[in-house]
C-alpha cells in the first residue's frame, strides 16, 4: 500500500514477446510520484513496448505493473483520465486541422484550459489551421505536445518527444516539463538523447534488450558520463595514461585520444596545461557508445 502512495508507476519483471522476439525480458521500473524520470536506451531496447504496456495498449505476458495505483490493462480508462501521452511517431488525421486534433484529444480527457491552449500554440509556434497531412514530423509532434500539456494531468508519458524538434522548441518543451513538475505532476520521459535527460530528470532507468540494466539518480550514474578528449600536447602518452580516471588512450596522427571520467576531468586538464596544450576538443560520448562500452558484454552473457 505504501509503495502505491509514493510510486506513480511500478513494474516488476515485465515480459512481452512478439513471436520469437522477446521485446521485454523481465523489465523493472519504478517512478516516484512527483519526479521526472528518464527512460533511456538505444533504439529497439523496449522503451516503447514498456510504455504501451503501461498504457494498456499491450498486455504483458509476465510480471506485474501498476500505474497510479491501478492495473494498466484492466483499469486503462480510469488511469487515462489522469494521464497525458505523446507517442514517438505521431500520426494525425490527414483531413483534420491541428486545432481540431488538439480539441478532440483534450476533449476526450475533459477539455483544454483555453488560456493554456492559446499560450502553448504561441510558444510552440504552431499554426492550428493547417491540415494534419500538411504538418512536418516536428509539427505533428507539436500538435501532440500541445494536446498533452493543454489539460493538467497527474502523469505525463513522453516517448522520444523531441526527436523532430529544433533546439528552440526543445527548450519550450523543457520549460513545460518543469512547469508541470512544479505543479506536482509525474513525468516519464523516454529518450536516447542524454543531454535532454540530464537537463530534466532526477532519476533515470536505462534499458537494454528488454531489461533495466541501471536505475538511480543521475548523481549515482556519474560514472556513466565519460568525456572523450582529443588533444595535441607535449605530454607523453604514458604520462597521460597514468593519470587517474583516464581510459582507452590511443595515439592518432600526432594527437592523443582518450576518455576521462567526468569527475576526474579537473586533474587531467591541470596535468595537460602543465605540460602545454596546442589543441583540445572534448566531446561527451553518445549514449549508444556508453551502452556498447558498459553493457554490451554483460547483457550478452546473461541473455
Amino acid at each position, binding site marked *: 500500500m505504501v509503495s502505491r502512495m509514493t510510486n506513480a508507476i511500478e513494474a516488476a519483471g515485465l515480459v512481452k514477446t512478439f513471436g520469437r522476439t522477446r521485446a521485454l525480458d523481465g523489465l523493472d521500473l519504478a517512478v516516484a510520484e512527483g519526479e521526472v524520470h528518464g527512460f533511456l536506451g538505444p533504439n529497439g531496447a523496449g522503451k516503447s513496448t514498456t510504455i504501451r504496456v503501461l498504457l494498456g495498449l499491450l498486455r504483458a505476458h509476465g510480471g506485474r505493473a501498476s500505474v497510479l495505483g491501478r492495473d494498466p490493462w484492466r483499469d486503462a480508462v480510469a488511469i487515462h483520465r489522469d494521464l497525458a*501521452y505523446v507517442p514517438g511517431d505521431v500520426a494525425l488525421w*490527414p*483531413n483534420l486541422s491541428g*486545432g481540431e486534433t488538439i480539441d478532440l484529444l483534450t476533449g476526450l480527457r475533459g477539455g483544454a484550459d483555453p488560456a493554456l491552449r492559446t499560450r502553448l500554440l504561441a510558444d510552440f509556434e504552431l499554426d492550428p489551421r*493547417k491540415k494534419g497531412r*500538411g504538418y512536418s514530423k516536428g509539427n505533428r509532434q507539436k500538435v501532440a505536445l500541445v494536446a498533452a500539456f493543454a489539460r493538467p494531468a497527474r502523469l505525463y508519458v513522453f516517448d522520444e518527444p523531441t526527436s523532430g524538434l529544433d533546439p528552440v522548441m526543445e527548450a519550450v518543451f523543457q520549460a513545460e516539463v518543469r512547469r508541470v513538475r512544479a505543479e506536482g505532476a509525474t513525468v516519464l520521459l523516454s529518450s536516447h538523447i542524454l543531454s535532454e535527460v540530464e537537463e530534466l530528470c532526477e532519476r533515470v532507468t536505462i534499458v537494454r534488450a528488454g531489461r533495466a540494466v541501471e536505475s538511480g539518480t543521475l548523481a549515482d550514474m556519474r560514472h556513466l558520463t565519460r568525456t572523450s578528449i582529443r588533444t595535441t600536447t607535449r605530454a607523453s602518452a604514458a604520462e597521460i595514461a597514468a593519470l587517474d580516471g583516464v581510459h582507452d588512450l590511443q595515439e592518432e596522427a600526432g594527437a592523443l585520444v582518450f576518455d576521462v571520467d567526468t569527475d576526474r576531468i579537473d586533474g587531467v586538464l591541470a596535468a595537460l596545461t602543465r605540460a602545454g596544450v596546442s589543441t583540445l576538443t572534448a566531446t561527451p560520448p553518445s549514449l549508444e557508445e556508453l551502452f556498447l562500452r558498459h553493457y554490451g558484454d554483460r547483457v550478452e552473457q546473461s541473455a
Partner: protein
Amino acid sequence: MRHALALQLRRDRLIMPVWILGTALLALGSVAAVVTEYGAHAQQLTVLRLALVNPSVLAFRGAPNGVSTGSMLWFELFSWLAVVAGLMNVFLATRHGRADEESGRRELVAATPLARSAPLAASLALGTVANLVLGLLLAGAFATASGVDAAGALTAGATFAVTGLAFLGIALLVGELAPTGRSANGIGVTVVVAAYVLRAAGDSLGTAHLGSVTLDVAWPSWISPIGWGEQVLALSANRAVLLLPGFALAVVGAVAALAIHARRDLGASVLPDRLGRATASPALRGVLGLDWRLHRPALVGWAIGGAVLGLATGSLAHAAGDLTSSGSPQIVQTLKLIVPGGREELQSLFIGVLMLLVGLLAAAAGVQGALRLRQEEAEGRAELLLAAPVPRWRLLLDGWIVAVLAGVIVMVAAGLLAWLSFLPGGDAGDGGVHAFGQALAELPSALVFPGIAALAVAVVPRASVAIAWALFAIGVVIGLFGQLLQLPEAIIRISPFDHIPNVPFTDGGPTVVLLAIDVVLAAAAVVLIRRRDLST
C-alpha cells in the same frame, strides 16, 4: 529523361499491366457477352429501340447508330470502358506527379543531375505508351466479334487511346495545380465522372430517330471527352475526324503542364492547400463525432450512388412494362433468376433488381465504415485515442454505429429518390411506395456485412480487411448470380441477400432473424476486442 522513365517503369511494372490487361480482359468478356445475348438482328432492334425511347437507358449506355453488332457493342461498352481508361490515366499521373512530390521522393530525384522536367516528361511518355497499348488490346478485343471489320476495330482502339490521352493531359495539368496527391486524384476523378455525366445528360436529352435507330445527341455530350469519343461511332460510322478534339485536349493539357512545371518551385502549387478550422466544432468532441467526420466524404459518394440507382428506378420500371409487351423472354428469365422470391410481374422484378444493387452499395458503405478502425489502428492514430480515457470497445462500437448509419443513409437516399422517380408517371402511390419499402427491406441483410467486418477487426485485425471484402464479394456473387450459375441451394441460402422479403411483407421471420444476427455480430466484436493487443 531516360533514367526518370526507367524509374517510373520499375515502379509500375505490376500496376500498369494489371490496369491494361484487366481492362482488356473485361472488354473481351463483355464483347463476347454482348454478341451472345444480342447477336441476332431482331434482338438488337428491340433493345436499341427500347433504349431510344428511354432516357435513363441512354444515360447508362450510349448512343446507338443503326442496327448492327458494331452499333450494339459501342452502345453497350464504350462509355464505361472510357471511364476505366480515364481513371487509369488520372492515377498514373498523380502517382508519378503530385503524390511523389508531396511525399518528398521527388526531392531526392530533383537533387540528382536530372533535368527539372524529366519526371513530368517521363510520365507523359509512360502514359502515352500505356494508352497506345490499351487501345491496341481493346481493338483486338473488339475484333473477336463476328461482324466487326479491321477498320472498325482499329478505330475503336484509337478512340480509347485518344480518350485516355485526353485524360492524361488533364491529369498532368491537375498535378501542377493541386496541392496534394489526394486532391489531385480527387479533382482528376471528378473530371472523369463529370465527362461521363455530361455524356449521359447529352445522350438522354438527344433527339431519337426510331426509324433509322440513331440518336442526335444534345450539346452536353459535345463538351465531354467521353462524348467526343462516343461520337466517333467506331464499329459503325468510324468518324475518325472526331478523334481530333480529344487529341487537341491532350496536347493542350500536356503543354500547359510542362509550361507551369518549368516555372514553379518544387512543392509549390497553383491552388493552395485549404486551411482548416483553428478549433474543433462541438460535433467533433467525441469518438462518434470523429468517426462520423472521417466517414462522411466516402458516405456522400455511396449515397450519391444509391440516389442515382433510385432515380433510375421509376423510368426503368416503366420500361419494364414496355418490355413485357414487346417480349424478350430471355431477359425476363435472367431477371427472375437474379431476384430471389420469384416474382411474376416484371415491374416489381425491376424494382427488386435495382434495390438489390442498392443493398449491395449499402453493405459496401457499411463494410468500409466498420473497417475504418483497422485503418486507424494500423496507421497509429488509434493509439492517440486509446491513451485518452476511451475504452477500446467504445472505438469499435462507435465505428459500427457509423457503419450502420451509412447503410441506412444509402438505403433511404435510394428509397426516397426511387419514390420521387415514380411521381412523373403518376405512380407514386403504388410503384413508389413499393420501391421505398423494398429499399428498407434490404437493410437487415446489408448490415450483416459491417457486422462481419467489425468482428474480423476485433479478432483477426491484420487479416480483417481482406476477410471482410472477400466475404462481401462472395455475397455479391451469390446474391446476383447464384441462381444463374446454378449453385447448390444450400450455398445460396448462406447469402444474407437471399433472405430479403418481397414487399408487401407477409412473413417477418427472416427479417427478425437477420436483425438479431446483425446485433449479435456487433456484440461479439465489442466483447472480443477487449482481449487483444493493439496491433500495427
